[in-house]
């Protein structure tokens, strides 16, 4: 789910940082620029791993800072398509189930990629997997907020969200700074730079306790056939409780 990206950039070191060692100053500057930001088609930048090479530093007329071309490797979060990840349910809505990893929030499981058959419970504001029982009935498995969930990455969407990017956005005008900040605010709200679309419509995927339970049941069924029914019932009622023990 993590990868190293090799990047090249010219780093400006301001005169007040000249007391630092060049490498240290450059590391800080790169981290300041990239950490916790999404780089288009690369992923979410986490932290600098190492510097590959530094070119000679140059100074430009009229600027006291030094500029150094540097090639470096950065740790980025970018799970490959079809990878399996584990996260927590952030919330449920009509759009589907939103999942968070703590450091990355923009993961959506659309309704079509949930276990089948699922429905959205309006009162609980949660998606429910209507697990079919052998006797023709169904057992409701709720997807509550905060529960750990395993999912498969099915698609990634990168979007250009920064107003300072290539001049594709027509709203971008070289006007006052106030105008720029307001467009930046709007763009930030409407667009998410990196989104992951996930799926849980396979056996083994979904809320972890669903499958833990089933395994327990299987084990118990193997050990003592006679007690199976009772255990079944207890496990279902306890849900999380059984898992915690």
């Amino acid at each position, binding site marked *: *789910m993590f990868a190293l990206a090799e990047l090249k950039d010219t780093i400006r070191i301001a005169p007040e940082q000249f007391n630092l060692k060049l490498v240290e100053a450059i590391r*800080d500057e790169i981290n300041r620029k990239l950490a916790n930001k999404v780089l288009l088609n690369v992923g979410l930048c986490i*932290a600098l791993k190492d510097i590959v090479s530094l070119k000679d530093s140059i100074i430009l007329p009229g600027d006291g800072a030094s500029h150094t071309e540097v090639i470096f490797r950065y740790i980025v979060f970018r799970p*490959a398509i079809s990878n399996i990840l584990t996260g927590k349910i952030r919330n449920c809505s009509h759009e589907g189930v939103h999942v968070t990893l703590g*450091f990355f929030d923009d993961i959506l499981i659309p309704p079509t990629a949930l276990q089948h058959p699922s429905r959205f419970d309006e009162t609980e504001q949660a998606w429910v997997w209507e697990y079919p029982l052998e006797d023709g009935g169904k057992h409701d498995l709720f997807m509550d907020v905060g529960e750990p969930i395993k999912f498969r990455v099915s698609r990634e969407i990168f979007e250009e969200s920064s107003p300072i990017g290539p001049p594709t956005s027509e709203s971008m005008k070289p006007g006052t700074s106030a105008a720029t900040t307001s467009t930046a605010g709007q763009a930030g709200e409407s667009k998410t730079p990196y989104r992951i679309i996930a799926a849980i419509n*396979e056996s083994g995927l979904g809320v972890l306790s669903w499958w833990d339970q089933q*395994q327990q049941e299987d084990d118990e069924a193997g050990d003592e056939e006679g007690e199976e029914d009772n255990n079944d019932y207890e496990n279902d009622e306890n849900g999380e409780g059984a898992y915690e023990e």
Partner: protein
Amino acid sequence: MEIVNPCFSVLSNFEVLESLKNIKDTKKKYGLRNLATITYETLQYLEESPCKHQNRDVICAFIKDMQPYKLTTNELLMMVNDPPSSALHIQLLIEDSEERLTEDQVNEIIEITKKHFPGPPAESS
């Protein structure tokens, strides 16, 4: 900013955990708030994951033991990040596992995983 290679190599969760711990230890007193945030949040996620109890030698040994099963790098990486505990789990991580692995092999893999990644109680140092 120029992107030389967007995916120079893949990293296991353990390697990321290690680097981030280093960064946290040599913490800077000034500025870098974004770095502090993402480091903290990512560390929190990783410390809840199985990689907390891994180390370099264990992972190398595991990969060596898995060689005969002819898995792809990506599949191995996923298995290191999320050691499989059941046949169902293996089926998820490995594409076409029914065709590529026999039932015995699946059981062997579970045994190997258990041997190398016993989980929290045995290795919580």
